[in-house]
């Protein structure tokens, strides 16, 4: 009876046919009300225009006149398996705020590209924004195949271009479907015009999308919405962002970081339940007279948020005035509002190249990475751990000017730690050392040569009076990370700790060389976010076959014998870097040449005289 609902946002360039595709999808799946198409044909006739499938969506008069979607709209598609809500988002750049509004309500996306016109700037921008908003399940429709004579070669070209693009952004599409929305090819019915395509139709691809992932990732979070007082009882109310809330549990109230215990759940009509799960809106009471109010965050003791006064964020700038260093805004996250100042401007993501470019300001519709600081300690989560509470909006006066996510916390303030500014600043350290600090992150398959290269690089830099130190599995797994195993969660935590330690080395002025398989692209992106500007990703490349032949530590042999389940070289997945700062191919280069190249690269990056 009650199927899991799926909300899908349709995005893409304004002229690539989203509204047409949705209109067609609803019609072909039998989801239009009786008489709707006839009504719209009649209206079109009276206006002297040809009927378009997009009219089904553009029910608003002004939109139909422009033949452009201005704001998001929603359509309901009922199927025997599940209900799908289609969110039609405008493709025009000037309505980007409406596109992200639609996307922020979606579980998945349908990305349209015109087969004739190909990938456009707006295609790239939308893909980038999907990642920012947190939509990572995507079906790609390569539309208007009729305009390219249903040519398979054209489809393959666009598909490979898009695959590379989405890969760099960190999105994996579940299907690339060649369609003609206007003619109904591969929408619901399998196309006869494209017999070379054997994959699913749009309809089948949407139904096959995996359901929403559980939110119980790491620990309890409830952003307190308010307090309901009845007599002497104070009931806190809020929605459980993640984790579980149960009577008797010990909790921490952030940002005051005071401890308390959950006394009971307070629900209406009264229920006997003593625990509630992620996603539920609940009321609950605490023992003791602890003062808790709107804006506070309830956490379990094992997973407290970080108290910090500054953090790195990625955001979409929607303001009419540019965003610039020194500007002050109000930030809303969870149920709290704080005043923040732009402390540093790191980069604007260039949409064409998807590269990061250094700018001093962000203009309307730019995606930028900046450092924000607050005068009071804020309890912050990062998007890697708690996406829900790591999302924020910025307000300028009463206008919403940005939406973004917290990538990493910087200056920390702990329960017993008073933030103290260093009396030696970064520039002073650089002058003393004669070089900058940096993190050189070597990633690659086991046996690709990371450790060998790292040790050789360390020796050479040392000989040139560059402060340096190698961090690798052997010196961290036995100490700092001795409590971690090899589950996905533990591996992610291991990489996070390495990145934090490496960032401290770099801060102190050293060149930290981190040699870790680090198979997950997401974990490496997080490492980059933690370290910031001084981070360089170096892909140490060698084929799996070559690595297994070398097998310097005998791991492949053990894995083949079944002794190392999930070993990255064999059964585990290694996600190849999409845009590493440097590639060292150890199959093509011999060791000395490989290290020469890497040494040159590092010295250029940390040098004070050479241009970087």
């Amino acid at each position, binding site marked *: 009876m009650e199927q899991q609902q799926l909300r899908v946002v349709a995005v893409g360039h304004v002229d690539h046919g989203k509204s047409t595709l949705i209109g067609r999808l609803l019609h072909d799946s039998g989801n239009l009300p009786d008489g709707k198409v006839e009504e719209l044909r009649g209206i079109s006739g009276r206006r002297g225009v040809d009927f378009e499938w997009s009219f089904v969506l553009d029910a608003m008069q002004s939109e139909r006149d422009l033949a452009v979607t201005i704001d998001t709209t*929603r359509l309901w598609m009922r199927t025997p398996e599940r209900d799908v809500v289609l969110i039609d988002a405008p493709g025009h750049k000037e309505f980007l705020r409406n596109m992200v509004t639609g996307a922020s309500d979606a579980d998945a996306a349908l990305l349209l590209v015109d087969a004739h016109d190909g990938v456009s700037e707006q295609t790239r921008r939308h893909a980038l924004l999907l990642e920012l908003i947190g939509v990572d399940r995507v079906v790609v429709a390569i539309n208007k195949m009729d305009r390219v004579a249903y040519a398979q070669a054209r489809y393959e070209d666009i598909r490979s271009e898009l695959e590379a693009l989405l890969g760099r952004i960190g999105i994996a599409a579940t299907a690339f479907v060649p369609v003609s929305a206007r003619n109904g090819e591969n929408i619901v019915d399998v196309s006869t015009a494209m017999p070379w395509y054997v994959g699913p139709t749009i309809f089948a691809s949407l139904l096959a999308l995996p359901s929403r992932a559980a939110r119980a990732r790491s620990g309890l979070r409830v952003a307190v919405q308010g307090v309901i007082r009845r007599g002497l009882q104070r009931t806190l109310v809020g929605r459980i962002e993640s984790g579980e809330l149960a009577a008797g549990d010990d909790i921490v109230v952030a940002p005051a970081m005071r401890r308390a215990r959950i006394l009971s759940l*307070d629900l209406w009509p009264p229920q006997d339940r003593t625990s509630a799960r992620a996603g539920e809106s609940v*009321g609950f009471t605490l023992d003791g007279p602890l003062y808790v109010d*709107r804006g506070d965050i309830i956490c379990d003791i094992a997973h407290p948020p970080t108290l910090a006064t500054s953090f790195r964020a990625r955001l979409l700038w929607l303001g009419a005035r540019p965003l610039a260093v020194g500007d002050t805004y109000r930030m809303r996250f969870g149920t709290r509002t704080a005043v923040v100042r732009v402390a540093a401007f790191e980069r604007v993501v260039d949409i064409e190249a998807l590269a990061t470019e250094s700018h001093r300001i962000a203009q309307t519709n730019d995606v930028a990475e900046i450092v924000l600081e607050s005068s009071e300690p804020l309890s912050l989560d990062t998007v890697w751990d708690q996406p829900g509470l790591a999302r924020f909006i910025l307000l300028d006066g009463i206008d919403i000017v940005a939406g973004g996510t917290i990538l990493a916390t910087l200056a920390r303030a702990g329960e017993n730690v008073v933030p103290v500014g260093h009396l030696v600043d970064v520039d002073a350290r650089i002058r003393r050392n004669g070089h900058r600090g940096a993190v050189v992150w070597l990633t690659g398959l086991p046996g690709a040569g990371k450790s060998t290269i790292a040790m050789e690089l360390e020796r050479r830099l040392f000989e040139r009076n560059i402060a340096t130190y190698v961090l690798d599995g052997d010196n961290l797994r036995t100490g700092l990370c001795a409590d971690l195993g090899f589950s996905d969660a533990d591996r992610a935590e291991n990489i996070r700790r390495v990145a934090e330690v490496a960032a401290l080395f770099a801060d102190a002025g050293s060149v930290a060389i981190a040699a870790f398989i680090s198979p997950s692209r997401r974990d490496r992106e997080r490492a980059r976010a933690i370290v910031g500007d001084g981070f360089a990703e170096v892909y140490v490349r060698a084929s799996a076959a070559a690595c297994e032949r070398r097998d310097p530590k005998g791991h492949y042999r053990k894995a083949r014998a079944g002794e190392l389940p999930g070993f990255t070289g064999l059964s585990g997945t290694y996600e190849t870097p999409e845009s590493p700062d440097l590639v060292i191919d150890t199959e093509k280069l011999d060791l000395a040449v490989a290290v020469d190249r890497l040494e040159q690269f590092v010295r250029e990056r940390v040098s004070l005289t050479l241009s970087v």
Partner: protein
Amino acid sequence: MNHLDELEARSIAILREAYFRVQPLCMLWSMGKDSTALLWLARKAFLGSVPFPVVLLDTEMELPEVYQFRDELSKAWDLDYINQLCPPESAMDPTLPPATRAAARKTVGLRELVTEKKYRGIIVGIRRDEQSMRAKERVFSPRTVEGAWDLKHQPAELWDVYHTDIPDGQHLRIHPLLDWTEVDIWRYTERENIPIVPLYLARDGMRYRSLGEKNITVPIASHASSIAEIIAELETTKAPERAGRKMDHESEDAFERLRTSGYM
């Protein structure tokens, strides 16, 4: 969590955001299935009692069963009920078609209510699936001093980090039911055992699918005499819900004109 649990949890969170962020605040109640389900959600959100006034924009044209339902439920649920009388049809924009003009009385009644009581938030039980104009709505949707909806310049609304700040004199429409569909409302009404106006159930082969004033709403042919039968009927019908609402169909842009000037 199943689909209804998800919808319920989100609506409750929205109601709480509205109450803790926007004051003074009221909720419109037409006694229809949607606003009655919303009232039930408000009781859940605030642990049994509704902490803001509940307003009927009264044209004195509701069906008698509707008024009777109002009297019974206001008492049983101990509501802070306000009856806001709407100005007569003769005071409406004469260029509007007749049924639209009748519906516009509510728009003007609402404007007078906001002016009198200085409300900064009005909770309204509209749904996106009812009508294509409503599909474009935000959860927290600003209105100008005149009550107008500037749909071409709606602010961004990201995730559930709601933006609730508005200039003095303006108000927010708050829409906790936007994501619900007609059948969701019925399933929830059945599950939670929420009272309904009996006119929704078929008598003599006719029932009201959507309840408006008696001069501008007509019943549909139906044999659904229980909520379960209504749900079964909705599973198969392709007729739009508001087919019985005359003002939606008088002219192509009638509903758009109503909405932009402040209709719900």
